[in-house]
Every structure is written in C-alpha cells, then in structure tokens.
C-alpha cells in the first residue's frame, strides 16, 4: 500500500493532487470561472515541472472537451475538470466523448446552473448530464474525491466499459473546505492505474483509423446499443475495480454506502456531502430508539438498482433527497429512478421526495430531523403528507 501521509487539503486540492499522481498525458481545461481551483492547482504542478503532462489552456469549455476528445482519440490518457455552467457549455462534446467511447476522466465540482446567476452548490449541472453516457460517481468528502479520481481512471479504461467518468463533489462544501486527507504514495497510485494502452490511435500511421464519422440510419443504432452495453458492463466492472483498490490501499468503496440500515424501518437517501449531515441525525434518533438509517449511492450512472433495492429491503418509509429539480413535475432525478426501481419489487416503502439545497441553500440537521420524524409517522400510519416536498424553501 506504500506510505500514507495525512495533509490538510480542500476537495479541489485533493483532486489536483490525484491528477498529479495520475499524471495524464494531456489535460485540456478552461482556466477562468466557472473553472475551479482543481485546474489552478494542477497547472501549478505543471509549471513547477512536477508532471510531464501537456497542459492545454483553451478559450472555452466547449473547446476544452473538444481538445480532450482529440487527445483521447490520439491515444493518450486524458483529463479535464469543470463545474456548473462550464459543463453546460461543454454539452455537445460531452455526448460525443461518451459515444466515441473515449475514457476521459473529468472531476466536476457540483454547482448550480444559472439563472438567476448562482455559483453555489447543487447538483443541477451533473444531473442534467445524467443521460449523456458518462459514468457518474458522487463523493461525500475530500478523501472520497481523492480516491475516486484515482479509481475513475481504471473504470474509464476498463476494456468492457470504455466510457468517460465524472467524479462529482459538492461545490464549496467539499471543494473549498479543508479536511484531513490521507494521500497514498506516487508509486502505489501509478502501479494501481497502470500504463495506458489505448484501443486505437489516430497518430498510428501504420494502422490508420477514422474517428467520429457520419453514422446514419444504418449503424448509429448499433453504436448506441454497444454504448448501452458498456454502461451495463460497468455495473460489474466497477465493483471489481473497487476490490482491486481495497487490495492495494485498504480502503473500501461500494456502489452504494449504507449507515445503520440493516434493521432500519425509516431511511433517507442522499448523495454527496449531505449524507454526512444525515449520519449525525441518524445517530441522534437511534439513541431515542428509532430504527433509522442512511443510504448514500456512490455511483449514479450506471444506476445501481440491485444494490439500492437490497439496501432498502425492510424499509417502511423512505425520503429521497434531491439537490436538483428536474422540472418534470414528478420529483427530482434520484427520486424518480428509485421510485421506478421499486416497481418490480413485491412490496415498497412509502416514498417521498425532498428537494433541497438549490443554489447552495444550507441544509441543517433540524431539517433532516424534521423529515425523519415525518417518516416515523408515515411508517406508523402509512399516510404520506406530501409526495414532493421542498425542504428549506421559504413559503
């Protein structure tokens, strides 16, 4: 496992450090807002000669992802980073990266999409990209972000997967707060990710290839079917890579994490940093004798349906927390998918959706406790007060 050292890092610094250890061949990134300190920190490593990475500062996020597609098609390990409206501006090429099956890794700092203009945490940026064909990993704290960035390289490059990966962390809450982060040594990280062996290279003149050709009614559908298979394969490949990571570094990762859920009758499901706040409330209510627990999906794409269903078996009342609004009028993205997943089950809990924290609105323990107490009532009576609730908004 090598030496482990503990340093005070923000989530952004943790990613920049992981990128330094990964040492991708190319990083193409937009250097100004909405870009984060991830790219600032990594650029410093490049400027100081700590890595041999070709750093390409570009004039827009659209160009950043385009340059990444070019670099990945040339056959080199490629990364970028983005946030919020930066991801929105990349949009067209985000889809192209996934459908061209280029294993690009992109840390994303989750922040609200404008408008009105807002730069604070919510998940509307990456949740909007949930159908783009990228794998999405959500992280609770800087340690998870650091480790997941390293793991993401292996997932993206896995032969049965070959899809790009977003590693998501909460804007400001995780990206700017300083925590103790355990760092692995460089050689252990390099050994874990291994040497990159590309599927093809546009620069290989002995074996020429055509990338991104016109693909009409006769073949496009087949390529989408392959892409769908890549995502399905990821459900098997990701746990294998998590196991390899545990073997190498002694740190466990799961498709979904649960906390005091084994005998729970009441549960809250939340992504990223909010899971930490929920955990504290679980402990408080457990002391009062309430059988409450937390489910924290780590991977949202592919959607780990079986793991989620297994974790929630026995739960009578469930609240799914969404830090984004899908404007479908039927609840947020995490909620609608979990609710749909229960369709095949013999029984299902009463489920409510709590949309919260939009534009960086704080979520407090008292808010979460209020939801838990509501669920305790629901578990007793079977009655749901209101299916879709907005937690923390002023009425």
């Amino acid at each position: 496992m090598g030496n482990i050292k503990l340093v005070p890092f923000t989530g952004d610094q943790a990613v920049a450090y992981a990128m330094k250890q990964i040492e991708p061949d190319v990083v193409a990134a937009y250097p100004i807002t909405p870009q984060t300190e991830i790219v600032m920190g990594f650029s410093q490593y490049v400027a100081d000669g700590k890595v041999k990475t070709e750093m390409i500062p570009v004039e827009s996020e659209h160009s950043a992802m385009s340059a990444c597609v070019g670099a990945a098609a040339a056959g080199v390990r490629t990364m970028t980073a983005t946030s919020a409206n930066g991801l929105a501006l990349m949009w067209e090429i985000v889809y192209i990266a996934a459908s061209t099956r280029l294993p690009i890794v992109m840390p994303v700092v989750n922040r609200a999409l404008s408008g009105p203009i807002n730069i604070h945490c919510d998940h509307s940026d990456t949740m909007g990209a949930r159908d783009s064909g990228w794998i999405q990993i959500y992280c609770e704290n800087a340690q998870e972000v650091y480790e997941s960035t390293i793991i993401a390289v292996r997932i993206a490059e896995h032969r049965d997967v070959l899809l790009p990966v977003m590693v998501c962390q909460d804007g400001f809450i995780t990206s700017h707060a300083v925590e103790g982060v355990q760092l692995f040594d460089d050689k252990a990280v390099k050994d874990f990710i291994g040497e990159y062996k590309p599927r093809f290279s546009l620069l290989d003149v002995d074996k020429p290839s055509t990338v991104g050709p016109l693909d009409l009614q006769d073949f496009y559908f087949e390529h989408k079917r392959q892409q769908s298979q890549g995502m399905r394969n990821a459900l098997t490949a990701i746990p294998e890579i998590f196991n390899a990571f545990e073997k190498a570094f002694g740190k466990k990762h799961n498709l979904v994490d649960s906390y005091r859920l084994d005998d729970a009758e009441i549960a809250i499901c939340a992504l990223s940093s909010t899971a930490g706040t929920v955990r504290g409330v679980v402990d408080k209510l457990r002391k009062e004798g309430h059988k409450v627990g937390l489910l924290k999906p780590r991977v949202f794409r592919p959607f780990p349906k079986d793991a989620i269903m297994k974790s929630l078996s026995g739960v009578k009342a469930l609240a799914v927390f969404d830090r984004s609004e899908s404007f479908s009028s039927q609840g947020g993205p995490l909620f609608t998918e979990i609710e749909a997943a229960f369709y095949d089950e013999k029984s299902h809990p009463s489920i409510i959706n709590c949309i919260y924290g939009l534009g960086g609105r704080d979520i407090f323990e008292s808010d979460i406790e209020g939801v838990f107490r509501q669920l305790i009532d629901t578990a007793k009576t079977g009655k749901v007060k209101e299916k879709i609730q907005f937690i923390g908004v002023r009425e």
Partner: protein
Amino acid sequence: MAKDNRDKTKGWKDIPIGGLIEKGGTAKAYKTGEWRTFCPVRDESKCINCMICWAYCPDSAIKTKDGKMTGFDLDYCKGCGICASVCPVKCIRMEKENK
C-alpha cells in the same frame, strides 16, 4: 416504400465500438456530388488557366493536368459556385441540373 435491409448488415456485437472505422481515407467513398443542384460549366475557349478556381474550390474538385484546368470532378463538386464567382474571365457558369 422503404426496403428493410436490417438482416443483411452486421450486428452491434460485430462492429468496432464508438463508430470507429479501422481504416483511413473513407471520405473518398462518399460521393458528395450527389448533393449538387447547380453544375459548373466551363467555356474552355475563354479559360486562361490561372488556377484561381483550383485554389478556391473547398472540395478539391477542380481537375488539372500539366498545369492546365481540365474540368470538374463531379463525384465531389457540391455545386457551390465559388469557382464561377472567383473566375477573373467569367468562363464558368452554373447551370441547373435536371435530376
């Protein structure tokens, strides 16, 4: 009515992923000249072989031999009319094609 050719082509497990084509120069097989509505026609007697049309053609569709303009490659000429527009002696005119 459209013809159903689905059974005659390779399935999704038998083709390279991501739309990759495992050879280069594939654009050559794609005859973009079929898109043309107007066709360039040259009056050879007026042509001074200045090669301005050759330099401007966005599809490399001006045919030449021994430094002389010899005609148009109609497999790839999309009929944009740039050659007619830039010709200094106006020896190229665009004629509507009857397809």
